[in-house]
């Protein structure tokens, strides 16, 4: 269904194509190479780069939110409860969770970062560290010691764009203080503020 090609082509156009290709090659030859000599030259990765997930063990309360929210359930958590006996001045015994095992299977992980997003106690962080390749896929299951070592490589988050919304704390602090609600009549200038009268049972215009 394709029509026959125009076989004979202008030999000059072919030569021109060849020449222009060689010209590009010659021009590029004078420019420095883009190649980074990787093991000697480290890549500079942005702080948000999703390399590996690091764990700050002290912050983990074994609440299991990350393990539950993970889309492919690659986080394994074991914990047990320990009783802290009441102090000498009384009170009662307290219980607390102790983390026994926290492991992430990086052969299953999809690097979505949902675990980090849902963690309510800031125990998980992204690190741009990427050099943890293994020969055997089973060795990609990393336990909490290894995840903890990566905490040292976690960079501080980048500053945000100047047009970004204020952080929640700043926005809350800048909000004008809430004024006490007053009966509508009292708001008119010149009127003396009176103590609020008890509201009638079925007021047609309930204010306040």
């Amino acid at each position: 269904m394709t029509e026959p090609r125009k076989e004979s082509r202008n030999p000059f156009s072919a030569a021109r194509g060849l020449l222009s290709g060689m010209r590009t090659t010659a021009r590029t030859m004078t420019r420095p190479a883009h190649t980074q000599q990787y093991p000697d030259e480290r890549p500079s990765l942005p702080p948000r780069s999703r390399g590996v997930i690091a764990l700050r063990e002290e912050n983990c309360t074994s609440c299991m939110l990350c393990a539950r929210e993970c889309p492919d359930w690659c986080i394994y958590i074991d914990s047990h409860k320990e009783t802290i006996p009441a102090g000498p001045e009384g009170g009662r015994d307290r219980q607390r969770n102790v983390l026994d095992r926290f492991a992430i299977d990086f052969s299953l992980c999809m690097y979505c970062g949902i675990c980090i997003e849902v963690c309510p106690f800031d125990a998980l962080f992204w690190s741009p560290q990427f050099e943890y390749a293994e020969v055997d896929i089973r060795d990609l299951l990393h336990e909490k010691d290894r995840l903890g070592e990566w905490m040292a490589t976690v960079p501080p988050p980048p500053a945000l764009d100047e047009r970004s919304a204020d952080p929640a704390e700043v926005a809350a602090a800048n909000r004008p203080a809430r004024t006490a609600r007053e009966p509508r009549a009292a708001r008119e200038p010149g009127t003396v503020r009176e103590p609020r009268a008890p509201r009638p049972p079925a007021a047609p215009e309930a204010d306040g």
Partner: protein
Amino acid sequence: MGQTCTVTSDTRRRALDVGVGAGGLATADMILNIGPQHPATHGVLRLRIVLDGERIVSADPVIGYMHRGAEKLFEVRDYRQIIVLANRHDWLSAFGNELGVVLAVEHMLGMEIPERATWARTLLAELNRVLSHLMFLGSYPLELGAITPMFYAFREREELQAVLEEASGGRMHYMFNRVGGLKEDLPAGWLGRVREAVTEVRRRLPDIESMLVGNPILRARTEGVGRLSPELVHAYGVSGPIARASGVDVDLRRDAPYLAYAELYAQGGPGRVVTRISGDSLARLEVLLEQVHVSLDLAEACLDRLGSLPQGPVNQRLPKVLKVPEGETYVATENPLGFNGYFLVSRGEKTPWRLKLRSASFSNVQVLREILPGCLVADMVSVLGSMFFVVGDVDK
């Protein structure tokens, strides 16, 4: 075109006659399997081709080798987890895929997203489009035997991937969309770096263009090859750059605008729809090449706008458990490869009851059975490569 079936049945009969020999030059048709593992198929697509000598009698795309059951998996994931899966079917346009899901959910919730988020999303979607197009602009000549464009394309891709990684943390699977906006705000100074990257890509684009446009070898391999008629485009639901190369002037960014496209594609705006009329492999390549320019224009318009918008958030506060009200909706977006639609049916749960995925490559690959017959085997690569599909998007 319509006689493909009869040709196949004829083939069977003739294939049995081998050896009986009606004369000196009787030949039997040969069935050739291309793939599932083949460098020209971008993944695991299998083509069953019946050959008469060098000429293709019929071709059958056999799909499903990469089927992962994405639609079924969506049904047991909440809307944040769906984004993880959704950005993986077409791995070259992850941002566009995420976008469809969140737009559908926002539509069902009746949620308004902040203006800065709209423009940032538009910007990121266009950068993603450039990335996807550059990938094909590099790989298509590679399939035809030219290695150099690949390096040029990847150099530009690297430039853009660096800025996308800085904002989202990912180079392919961005995970940057959330229902109600974006995951987090843009880093300080990022807009400037995007502008630098866009300028740089624009400056060096002629390098790759000069190798493709007017290249006599490339022309000889692509001109008039794999001609796709507008009727076939409509019959098979082909969309995106391939449909536009056949003269079908349809682009959802202009025809059913979402995000900020209504403004960008308004009169006098930077948006324009690139079309060609010949419908051959060369036209498809040219559409892709010109769309890169359009997308860079759109990206710059978004940057200008983002630099002048007032201070504000990029996302909405969401409830801890996000439930979508009962109902159904269909949202289609113009992905780099064509229409990408999500049909979302919710029964008020935190997971969708059904999320049907209409992917661009699926329809675009089906039309191969119509345009391959008649081609030579050598043209098969040229046609296949110019259909610009991602097998993950075909098999879902």
